[in-house]
């Protein structure tokens, strides 16, 4: 594992965050759990107080641009948000073709020949025939950003990767294995080994985002088992969309509802009372299931963070709230 560089405490480099010490935060989760939102909030939180973070997406969805209300991002590191103390979040949408060209250019000084390669469809070909190769290029770019330094200081205090969903994340991160099947020698192999060692070092943590619903929780358990078997460090379990704990006693009667409605000065017709009771009962059923899922997650013994359901949807202000909650956790 590489030794952390000693450095002067200036220009955007404040060292590790107390609660989130890793340098590379990989965020995964089942589709629809809000993993992109959590990744963005984490990048924002970690940038507070004058730090600089990079938020990376690799699936070509332009989710970052949508979250921050921006035009689609080019393949370049652009500032997407400023934070307190002169901190900033930059964002990068990694495109496998661009990453391959950049990579070839770095090692082989291809210049115009690189563009010719694209013309004959070579890039498309190379990144399609073997998704393992494509993933090495994507994760290679992430590694480069994570370990980049300028004047002896690391350039980014933290890098947050909005990774593929739980079903694919193991294969995505297990680059060496996938690549070794095809490539026995050469710089791609060296590159994949570099990525593999970063991903297995304490500098990295994979956080899994879930909802308190059956499928996402099952996929969370599966993903954590898979990552553990691959010796990739698992960080937090982020429970997203948690609801406020209403009806803590877990029971409700129509008589109580009727009395309460009357006390609040509302009409307490039988139909009203019984419909409210039905809704309350459905809520309790739901909550019971959520409770058992929460227990299942707790049994993993991993640190858990809960983020509230944001009924109004996610905007920049909401991202800020989530960021603050994450940093306190």
């Amino acid at each position, binding site marked *: 594992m590489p030794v952390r560089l000693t450095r002067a405490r200036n220009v955007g480099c404040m060292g590790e965050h107390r609660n989130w010490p890793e340098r590379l935060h990989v965020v995964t989760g*089942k*589709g*629809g759990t809000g993993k992109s939102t959590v990744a963005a909030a984490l990048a924002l939180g970690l940038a507070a107080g004058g730090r600089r973070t990079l938020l990376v997406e690799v*699936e070509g969805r332009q989710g970052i641009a949508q979250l921050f209300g921006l035009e689609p991002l080019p393949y370049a590191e652009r500032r997407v948000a400023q934070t307190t103390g002169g901190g900033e979040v930059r964002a990068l949408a990694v495109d496998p073709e661009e990453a391959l060209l950049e990579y070839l250019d770095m090692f*082989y000084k*291809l210049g115009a*020949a690189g563009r010719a*390669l694209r013309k*004959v*469809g*070579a890039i*498309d*070909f190379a990144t*399609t*025939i*073997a*998704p393992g190769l494509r993933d090495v290029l994507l994760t290679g770019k992430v590694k480069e950003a994570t370990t980049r330094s300028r004047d002896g200081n690391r350039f980014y205090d933290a890098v947050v990767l909005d990774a593929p*969903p739980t*079903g694919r994340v193991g*294969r995505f991160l297990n680059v060496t294995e*996938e690549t070794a*099947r*095809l*490539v*026995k*020698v*050469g710089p*791609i*192999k060296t590159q994949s080994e570099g990525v593999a060692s970063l991903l297995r070092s304490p500098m990295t943590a994979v956080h899994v985002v879930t909802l308190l*619903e*059956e*499928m996402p929780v*099952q996929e969370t358990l599966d993903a954590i088992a898979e990552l553990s078997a691959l010796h990739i460090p698992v960080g937090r379990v982020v429970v997203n969309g948690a*609801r406020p704990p*209403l*009806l803590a*006693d877990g029971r*409700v009667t129509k008589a*109580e*509802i009727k*009395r*309460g*409605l009357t*006390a*609040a000065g*509302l009409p307490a017709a039988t139909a*009203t009372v019984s*419909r*409210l*009771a*039905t*809704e*309350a009962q*459905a*809520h309790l*059923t*739901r909550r019971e*299931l959520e409770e058992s899922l929460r227990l299942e997650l707790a049994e993993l013994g991993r640190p858990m963070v809960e983020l509230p359901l944001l*009924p109004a*949807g996610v905007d920049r202000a909401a991202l800020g709230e989530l960021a603050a909650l994450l940093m306190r956790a």
Partner: protein
Amino acid sequence: MVAELTAPRLDVDGLLADPSIRIVVCCGAGGVGKTTTAAALGLRAAEVHGRRTVVLTIDPARRLAQSMGLTELDNTPRQVKGIDVERAGGELHAMMLDMKRTFDEVVEQHTTPKRAAEIFANPFYQAMSSTFAGTQEYMAMEKLGQLRAGEEWDLIVVDTPPSRSALDFLDAPARLSRFLDGRMLRLLLAPARTGGRSVFSLVTASFGLFSKTVQKVLGAQLLTDLSGFVAALDSMFGGFRQRADQTYRILQDPQTAFLLVAAPERDAIREAAYFAERLVAERMPLAGLVLNRMHHTELAGLSAAESEAAAARLDETGDNQVTADVLRIHASLLRQAEREAGVAAGFTGAFPAVPTTSVTAQPADVHDVDGLRTIGALLA
């Protein structure tokens, strides 16, 4: 339940009962309940409409698969137990797609046993048949083509793969055949065809630079494996293409009905809208939209604002905390229903003519035949 939607109501029973409809394709973003919808439709087609139905699932949740008696990816339709076969005389079978095995079968059908063995041993084939972006989609199409050609089923319900994008399902076969037919592959194949020693011996000088780079970056062994792989696949190009085209034509035929499945979330609705555009552009028969996990309330007379204000009054007195909570539950349900209707309107506004049905969110997940029956009834 669709009162707030302006779209025409999707007649699910009419669709499932129509003997001219032979294929129902459920498509949509991941995590919107496609598999559950497909299974519920299949069950209803069998139990209520008496059709001999098979459901082709791609990657079902474990408990849902178990509820249909599926325990392994074995490409074999299995009859689902615990359904009412007396009432209408239908049957329900279900199968899980085994992507690799399907690919192997395609290879075996299109080449000699000796060639097939060479292909199976090639590391590129191994990588491609299990991980190639689009293989799962392509093989789902292939399997659908096989099931249809067998004329064994009244109705085939297909659950499309959990793609990054719903569109992958339509694009994958074209992408695969473009790939197999691509210029790159032709270049790589040139020496193999002429029996040349070097992989790139016969190609142009500008390509020489590429080959040198590839050799340096990837190593010569990889090129040898790759050229062997494409040379072997070359013999099957025609067959591959033809089958993909055939399946594509079946999908354009009126015997097929596409159902878009979405949950009332922005991303899922956006995917559904993209997909609807594509279906129209490709002249594929779009039957309607299924909105899963919609919330609604039977108590429309008590508004969210009123409920919250009343809850706050009860908080102040400190009594009746239960009722305060009940009112907050009601308020949040109302707001959620309103939000969902707004999100769904994004689709119905853009495609006002697409018939729509919605399924109320269930308090717990569906993982038995009874649950599927309930969903089927809500759909219809």
